[in-house]
């Protein structure tokens, strides 16, 4: 197997990992699948395009997640918090509507054209990895994603806030009784989740094209990852995201036409074998 292909798979897996961990965190806390996650990722990519043009890519890497975190705060304060006593499915459908709105607003602002973002100077070339040349920028994507994953898991496991987040994901009511401010934890989690989506969008911008359908395309993959990993399990989502990214890219060598179906096939297999997902608890 080609090392380049494997690295491509890891790069795609890294993006899926960042996105699905955010989705899984929001799901764990609010019980809501955020169908606007793909739209947030798309917003991140478009904001990165503008900032990269005006200032630099590195500024975009900071700015896009910050803007998205603000958007996440709106999402939490206006929708999730006000609707928290409503049926979860209804709230999920609200995010479905929000996704439609955000995607259209993006097209109104930036237009329908496919945009491209240049990799930051110094990373446009290739680096030799174990003898094969590989685009340096993608190595950066992999590096940032892995660092982020390790950092996130460490933060969730070791910090006090992380403890609160894990407790609230496990059982919102009991944690509230025990004195955890669930609303504050939730605000933090939704902001982080949205910021991660923005970061994923920024990282993706230079290496996939920035276009109006990118949000929907990635959303479906991320949903599959979250279901396979076990709804609400952050670790499961991360592992499933990475595995699926690699499987899909490597599968493209053997069966180019069928590789897009790999995520769906994986979904069916996992469902039949373990309906609650790889790391999920039995409901």
């Amino acid at each position, binding site marked *: 197997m080609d090392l380049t292909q494997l690295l491509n798979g890891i790069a795609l897996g890294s993006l899926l990992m960042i996105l699905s961990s955010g989705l899984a965190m929001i*799901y764990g806390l609010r*019980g*809501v*699948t955020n169908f606007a996650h793909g739209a947030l990722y798309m917003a991140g990519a478009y904001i990165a395009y503008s900032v990269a043009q005006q200032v630099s890519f590195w500024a975009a890497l900071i700015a896009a997640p910050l803007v998205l975190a603000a958007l996440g705060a709106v999402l939490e304060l206006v929708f999730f918090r*006000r*609707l928290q006593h*409503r*049926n*979860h*499915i*209804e709230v*999920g*459908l*609200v995010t*479905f*509507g*929000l*996704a*439609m*709105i955000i*995607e*259209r*607003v993006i*097209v*109104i602002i930036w237009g329908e054209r496919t945009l491209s973002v240049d990799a930051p100077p110094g990373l446009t070339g290739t680096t030799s990895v174990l003898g094969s040349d590989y685009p340096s920028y993608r190595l950066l994507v992999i590096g940032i994603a892995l660092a982020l994953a390790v950092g996130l898991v460490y933060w969730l496991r070791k910090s006090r806030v992380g403890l609160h987040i894990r407790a609230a994901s496990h059982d919102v009511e009991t944690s509230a009784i025990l004195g955890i401010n669930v609303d504050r934890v939730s605000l933090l989690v939704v902001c982080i989740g949205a910021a991660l989506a923005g970061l994923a969008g920024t990282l993706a911008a230079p290496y996939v094209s920035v276009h109006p359908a990118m949000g*929907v395309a990635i959303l*479906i993959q991320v*949903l*599959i990852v*979250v*279901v396979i990993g076990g*709804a609400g399990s952050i670790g499961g989502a991360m592992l499933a995201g990475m595995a699926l990214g690699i499987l899909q890219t490597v599968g493209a060598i053997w069966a*180019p*036409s*069928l590789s*897009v*179906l790999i*995520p*769906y096939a994986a*979904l*069916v297999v996992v*469902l*039949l074998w373990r*309906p609650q997902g790889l790391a999920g608890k039995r409901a």
Partner: protein
Amino acid sequence: MTDNLTGAPELTITPGGSDSQTRLGTIARHRHWLVGGGIIAVITLLGLAVPYLVSSKFNMGLVLDGVILAFLALSIGFLARHLGLISLGHTAFFGGAAYTVGIGIGRWSMTPTVAFVVAVVVGTLLALIMGVLVVRSTGMTFLMLTLALGQALYQFSTQRIAIPWTGAHDGLQIDLSGGTFLGLTQKSMMNAALFWPVAWVLLMVCALWLWITGRSRFGTVLEGIRENEERMRFSGFNTDLPRLIAFVVSGCVASIGGALFALNAAYVSPELLSFTKAGDALTAAIVGGLGVLAGPIFGAIVYVLAQSRFNTSGNLHLYTGIALVLVLMFLPGGILGSLEKWVRGRLSRRRQATPPSTSEPSSPEDQS
């Protein structure tokens, strides 16, 4: 958990034994079937007059599009109302049936009538396959799974390997000149006014079928599962099989809509299987009202009419999204659902004002 979304009334299961059932109750129940069936029959007859009332050809086409979308919305609404499950995968049955018509006529030179029947069978089989995979899940997981599996079919239809069958993004032209469908030639099928009676009567038959299913003992079992699956299991009911049957029934209704679409448009494209289509149908059903049988039908027609008014600058999905968010936040139950609640409120207030009458108790769950 009360189900705001479907706006379904509180479930009341009356003891089923013949001892506890009064004769009056039996008559009232039979009367109910007659009244419901009568209302649907009258609406069907009234609907047949639509081509005479809508003069412009353009508007007639729109109303017909609305009715075809209504099949999809109706099938999604049925699952939501009786099981509390929201499906984003019904496009697979709708689009799958439409593609079957195209492939059946184009490749295997079936007549349109045969192709229609085969398409509905294929769509229903797809529903059975997807149903086996998804019925054990509920809530959010169900939503995600149906979306993912529905999109699998979309992805497949656009692949290079599928081009000989589906034409990928180019879609498939259907040559209908070879035969007739229920006596309609190709020209009549593509004429909205002439195709209308077929589509409308079939829609009403489906509505009647779903209504009877929902009102039957089977429907009561479904609602029991929706309210508390565990308790139903402990009471000795099999809960997976009824859910599967309901899923397949609703998939069959969606397939009928898809097959009709293909015959009328003589063209199928991956757009039929897309995420957007699933969103359109779901939005139509929610805006119309998931808790009322007529809600999704009403919603679909309103949706298509609104689409032609507001799609001037390609902002359709902006408005769709806004409508969906606003209805969900401020009008749970949809337009017809809220209307029904308002009327019911007025009636019960009036009943309280007058001394209690001796008339037979009206059923609290009349949803026709």
